[in-house]
């Protein structure tokens, strides 16, 4: 009897709940992505997925926009740089405020950069060229650099230097600059504020309607974590998710492209997959000889990789600097192609007529073992017998960063959209991210000059020189450049993606028409 009564009460409760109105009248965009959010402090996290929420909640001095070749004014309405490239002056808007009424002025900018340096994690590493941040007047701030650094402006538009106000110090614990608190809270002045974060499930952003830009065109953005590709696709087609920003398989994407009820925002990506030879400076390694590295480059079946494995959703690419950036040498794209005869000839010249045995290492996620299988099969045809070893992501990353990876598959995603992030950061012998251990004083001198010049034409010439050297020495073998595909439903308007906003979708300009 008691059980029957309980069931009756529960049924009544459920029926009552059916007539309780849901949140009505709000415009909401729901975004699905399999990745986890883990930290919302722009000065602490390097996890690119966190940026999709952080970039919407904070203002920076400048911002990436629809045109991926330039940065747009944001909290700074204008700026200038001295001829020697050592002093950058930013003029701030006078209408940027935090929720507590604090104005985003020059002193806030100065504090924010002190905090970035004080937190001292990965994001701070990108601003080592800054000698001093000076408050000229409440709406003018100067950055004095230790040395001229051409990409300075584009680095200012990334997620890392977003402006955190001094009120964060109210939450400081043991000298942590409030990082523990800000990891799960928000103190921005951006177009959206953090409404809630149910960890492992979703982040809800609500419009900061009094934002100086006039505020976003939707009331809420729900960033859902949906782990499984099949579920993501189902939710998109059911309309419970409006945009998918990553996580679908190539097959799913191709299928969605055929549908009339799904649109695809397609854009370039600066992400590249490539093969590294970390032991190329070791005289006892077979990869010490550039001819062997070039033989590998000629042995790869790029078409099988691009059209077969990636189903045509990526782009053939050679030449160090990704497509979409200035300073490229397009003809390089055609120079390394599959030529088994030439590969065998190079191996013979290098003293390996019968090939050799080697090990190719890669991490388990992101389909790297499939890439390894193709490389293994291609190299077998020229006599190089490859043993493939796969590792957990963090183990492999540690190995690569400690330069113990040997012959390995690697991926690069830029921190800022400038050729310097590829030519200098990945190729200079003193650069920390020179995963390939490339060491060439001539190349070093060229990319040093290029990063210090403020003349784009001069930089273009220098990068082109650097790429020809890189082509000759072949310290890495580039497999392909990725493209970005964000499927969305037709009622979503104003949405786009490109190489600079790939990880930071433009929620501030997107709206819904249902």
């Amino acid at each position, binding site marked *: 009897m008691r059980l029957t009564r309980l069931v009756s009460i529960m049924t009544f*409760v*459920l029926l*009552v*709940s*059916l007539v*309780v109105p*849901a*949140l009505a009248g*709000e415009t*909401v965009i*729901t975004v699905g992505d399999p990745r*986890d959010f*883990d*930290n919302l402090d722009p000065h*602490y*996290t*390097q996890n690119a997925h966190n940026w999709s929420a952080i970039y919407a909640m904070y203002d920076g001095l400048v911002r990436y926009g629809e045109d991926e070749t330039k940065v747009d004014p944001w909290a700074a309405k204008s700026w200038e740089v001295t001829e020697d490239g050592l002093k950058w002056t930013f003029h701030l808007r006078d209408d940027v405020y935090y929720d507590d009424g604090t104005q985003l002025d020059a002193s806030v900018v100065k504090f924010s950069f002190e905090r970035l340096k004080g937190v*001292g*994690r*990965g994001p701070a*590493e*990108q601003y080592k060229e800054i000698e001093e941040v000076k408050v000229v007047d409440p709406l003018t701030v100067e950055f004095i650099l230790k040395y001229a650094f051409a990409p300075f402006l584009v680095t200012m538009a990334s997620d890392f230097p977003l402006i955190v106000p001094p009120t964060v110090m109210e939450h400081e614990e043991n000298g942590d600059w409030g*990082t*523990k608190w800000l*990891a*799960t809270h928000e103190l921005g002045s951006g177009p959206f504020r953090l409404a*809630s974060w*149910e*960890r*492992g*499930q*979703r982040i809800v952003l609500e419009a900061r309607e009094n934002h100086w830009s006039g505020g976003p065109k939707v009331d809420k953005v*729900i960033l*859902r*974590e*949906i*782990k*499984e590709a*099949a*579920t993501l696709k*189902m*939710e998109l*087609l*059911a309309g*419970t998710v409006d945009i998918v920003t990553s996580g679908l398989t190539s097959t799913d994407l191709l299928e969605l492209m055929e549908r009339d009820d799904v649109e695809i925002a397609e854009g370039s990506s600066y992400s590249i997959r490539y093969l590294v030879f970390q032991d190329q400076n070791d005289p006892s390694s077979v990869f010490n000889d550039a001819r062997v590295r070039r033989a590998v480059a000629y042995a790869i079946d790029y078409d099988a990789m691009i059209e077969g494995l990636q189903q045509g959703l990526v782009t053939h690419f050679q030449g160090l600097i990704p497509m979409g950036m200035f300073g490229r040498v397009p003809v390089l794209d055609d120079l390394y192609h599959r030529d088994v005869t030439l590969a065998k000839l190079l191996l013979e010249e290098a003293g390996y007529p019968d090939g050799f045995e080697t090990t190719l290492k890669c991490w388990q996620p992101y389909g790297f073992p499939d890439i390894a299988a193709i490389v293994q099969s291609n190299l077998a045809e020229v006599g190089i017998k490859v043993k493939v070893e796969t590792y*957990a*992501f*963090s*183990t492999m*990353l*540690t*190995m*690569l*960063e*400690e330069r113990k990876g040997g012959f390995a598959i690697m991926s690069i995603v830029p*921190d800022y959209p400038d050729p310097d992030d590829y030519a200098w*950061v990945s190729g200079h012998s003193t650069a*920390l*991210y020179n*995963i390939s251990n490339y060491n060439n004083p001539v190349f070093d001198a060229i990319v040093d000059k290029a990063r210090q010049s403020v003349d784009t034409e001069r930089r273009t010439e220098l990068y082109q020189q650097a790429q020809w050297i890189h082509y000759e020495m072949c310290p890495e073998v580039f497999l392909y450049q990725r493209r970005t595909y964000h499927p969305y439903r037709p009622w979503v308007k104003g949405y786009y993606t490109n190489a600079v906003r790939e990880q930071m979708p433009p929620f501030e300009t997107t709206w819904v028409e249902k």
Partner: protein
Amino acid sequence: MFIYSIHRLLLIIPTLIGVTLLTFVVSNILPMDPARLQVGPRASEETLQRVREELGLNDSLPIQYGRYLYRLCKGDLGTSIFTGRDITSDLGIYFPATVELALFAFVIAVLFGVGLGTLAAIKSGQLLDHLSRITALLGVAVPVFWLGIMLQIVFFSNLRVLPASGRIGQLIAAPKHVTGLYVLDTVVTGNWLALKSSLLHLVLPSITLSFGTLALISRAVRASVLEVLEMEYVNTARAKGLAERIVIARHVLRNALLPIMTMSGLQLALLMGGAILTETVFTWPGVGRYIVQGCFHADFPAIMGSVVVIGAVILLINFAVDLSYMIFDPRIKYD
């Protein structure tokens, strides 16, 4: 009984210390550098060393372990190396999600497992028995991720009657955190809309998670009930003229269930340990996913914190199962 309980509870402490030691050793022999992973590949050696120092990674392993135990005694599971968040607070969110899902799955598995097993025994050799055998076989053989996706296709994509993922509807605010179990929290706070939504979100993941356990329980119950049905006291009960329903409920099941309890307890413990595949398919923010994320980023404190909490819960469940024998079988005494 009281002394036995105290003795058993005290034994949990060295077992837990063993768990922490094992996890600590395994974590530290892996060739991963948490500091490097935290600061990123572009960080200078100087930054790397400073962060290593801050994280205490430059100290010897015994000192690091001792410091961990000291903090643990104070109820502090530490700070995640990767996310910089407090692990105790993280687990306060992730662990209840696992408990909620595990309990629902367990209830489904026990109710249907016992029912199916009993029917199969009573109808031994008949159609129902064969169907039960096939169900059990499927329960063991069908991969969880496949079953989960199939249920999503049918009930979410096609019929549109149940949600595919998450713990609550996307336009519904999560209930105020009281216990972390959404169903309980929505009842406590009187949030009926959220209660309905959280119950609906539990259906598919708990059915998926329960299927394997249901299969095991149903087979064990069948075997046990068949054995008891042969007993003299069952014949006596029938001879007394008791209705078959009463014979089964009072005399057969009560005696048959004792051997099932140990197995069910262990199954509940396993479910509590995190059902990674189910949690992934249904984007259920449970402790299994938290551990996987920790492994992905070499986040040793997060992994160790989770293992300690899961270990403690498993030990407590086993303890509870042992004590419950006395309730179901008064002949058992712990002295």
